[in-house]
C-alpha cells in the first residue's frame, strides 16, 4: 500500500493512472502543474513520483532537477512523457529520473515498473 504522486495535466491520463494504480492497491494523488506539484511535495510523504514533462505552467525538467537538487529527495521518480527522443530520455535520466516511460503507455508495463521502484 504505497502513496504515489502523479504530476500530470492531461486529465484522461490522470484518470487512467488512478484506475490502474488504485486497482493495484496504491494510493494516487494527481496534481496538474508545477506549482501544485511543489506544493504537494512540501510534505515528503510519497513513495514514488510520476512526472510529466510537458506541463502548462513550466518545464518538467526544471522540476525534476529541483526535486533532486533543491529538495534533495531520493524518492523514485518515473518520467511519463510523450517526448521520446534519445536526447530527452538521456537528459531526464541524467537529471535524476529513475525510469522513463513513453506515452502512450501500456498500463501493465507501467504498473510493473512502478511496483519495482516502490519495492526498493
Amino acid at each position, binding site marked *: 500500500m504505497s502513496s504515489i504522486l502523479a504530476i500530470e495535466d492531461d486529465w484522461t491520463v490522470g484518470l487512467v493512472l488512478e484506475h490502474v494504480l488504485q486497482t493495484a492497491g496504491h494510493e494516487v494523488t494527481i496534481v496538474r502543474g508545477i*506549482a501544485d506539484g511543489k506544493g504537494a511535495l512540501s510534505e515528503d510523504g510519497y513513495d514514488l513520483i510520476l512526472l510529466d514533462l*510537458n506541463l*502548462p*505552467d*513550466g518545464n518538467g525538467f526544471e522540476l525534476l532537477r529541483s526535486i533532486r537538487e533543491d529538495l534533495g529527495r531520493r524518492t523514485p521518480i518515473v518520467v511519463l*512523457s*510523450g*517526448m*521520446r*527522443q534519445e536526447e530527452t530520455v538521456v537528459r531526464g535520466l541524467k537529471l535524476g529520473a529513475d525510469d522513463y516511460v513513453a506515452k502512450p503507455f501500456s498500463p501493465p508495463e507501467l504498473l510493473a515498473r512502478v511496483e519495482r521502484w516502490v519495492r526498493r
Partner: protein
Amino acid sequence: MNSLERLFVAYQLAVIGYFAILNLIYSVLAFVGLRTVIVYSRELSDVSLKDLLEREVFKPVSILVPAYNEEKSIVASVRSFLKLHYPRFEVVVVSDGSTDATLERLIDAFALVEDPRVWSRRLPTEPIRRVLRSLRHPNLVVVDKENGGKSDALNAAIDLARYPLIAPVDADSVLDAQAILRASRLFVEDDSVIAVGGTIRPLNGAVVEGGRPTELRMPRGWLERLQIVEYARAFFLGRAGWTRFGTVLIISGAFGLFRRDAVVRAGGFWRGTVGEDMELVMRLHREHIRAGLPHRVVFSPDPICWTEVPSDLGTLRRQRNRWHRGLWTNLWRHRSMLLNPRYGRVGMVAVPYFWLFEALAPVIEVTGFLVFVAALLLGALEPGLLWLFLALAVLHGMLLSQVAAGVEAMLLQRYPRPSDRVRLLAAAFLEFLGFHQLLTLERFVATFQAATGRRGWGTMRRVGIPG
C-alpha cells in the same frame, strides 16, 4: 430643386456611397474573418499542438525586446518571457540608451556579465556599448546601446539574434504561453510564409497570476472597456478577413513573428516612422513582389498577446495620434504601390483601402459631419434627416462591434461573468456614442500634423494600428 440643394444631395450621395462601400468591405471582412476563425479553430487541435511540442517540430525563435526606461517592469517582463512554453528560444533585450536603472535591474536580477563576443553586423545602428549575457539563463542576451529609437533598437537585436525566426515584442507584452508555438508552426507548414501576426487583447482588468491572465474581468474604466471591443473588432474581423485575401499590411509591434533572413534582406526596421511595424510589412510585400519571390504574410487569430491599454484619455489620444501619423508616413513612403497593378492585390486593394478608408476616413467623417451641420443651418436639410443619417452611421458601427464581441465570446478564454458580458455588449453600443467620434477627431488632427510635417517620437511604446 435649386443648385445648392442639388449640390448637397450630390454630397450626401458621395458620403452615403463612401459609407456604403466601407460598410460592404467591413461586412465582407467580417464574414470572411469569421470563417477564418472557424477553420483555424479546427486546424490546430490540442492533439496536434501536443504532437508538435513532443516531437520537437518547431523552428527556434529569438524574442526581441526593445526597452527604454522600463526600470519598473523590465525584470518581471523578461522573467515572463523566459517562462514561455517553447522548446528552444532566446530573449534579446535591447536597452536603447536608457537613462534610468533598467540595465542595473537586469544585471542584478539575471546575473549578467559582459561578453566580448564578435558577431556579424548586417544592419547599421547606433553604437552598441556592450553585450551582456546571463550566467543563469543561457538564452538571455542584453544589449546596452546608445539611443536610436525603437526601430534602431530592434535592428540591433536582429543582428544579435541567432535563430531563424525573430519575434519583435513590446517590453510590456504578455505572451500567451502557447503564442509562439501557434505562430511558429505556420512557418513550418509553409515555406513561403515570411511573417505571422497574432491577436492583441487588452489585459486591463484581468486577474493575473504567475505573469499570465487566469481570469478575464472587465476593467473599471469605460475607456478601457471600449478599447476591448475596439481591439476585438480590429483583429477578429479586420485582420482575420484580410488574411484570407493575402493582403495583411500590418503586424502589430506588440507581437509578431518574422523570418530573420527576410527582414535582414529588406534592411530591417525603418527609423523614419513611428509606425515601424506596419512599414516593415509593407516593405516586405514590396521587396518580395519586386523580386518575384513567393511570400505570404499571415494573420492567425490563435496566438494571443496581452497588453495594457491606456486608461486615461490623454495617453490614449497621444497614442492614437501617433498611430495615425505613422500610418500616413508609411502610406506616403510607399505611395508608389497605390493602385499599382504591379503589386497585385496588395497594391490594388489593400493599399487603396488603407488610404481611403483608414487614413482619409477621419477627414471624410469630420468634413461630412460639418457639411451636414452647415446644410442644416442653411435650411437645405431637415433636422430629422440629419438625426437619421447620424443614427445610421452609429448603428452600423454598433453592429460591427457586436459581431466582434460575438467572436470574442467564442474563445475558450473569454469574459466569463454574465455581468461582464453585458458590460461588453454595452461597450459595443457606447463605442459609437462619443468614443469613436472623439478618436476620429484626434486622427483628423493627426492627419493635419502629418501633412504639416510633425515628426514627434514620444516615448517608445507600441505603435500597432488597429485596423
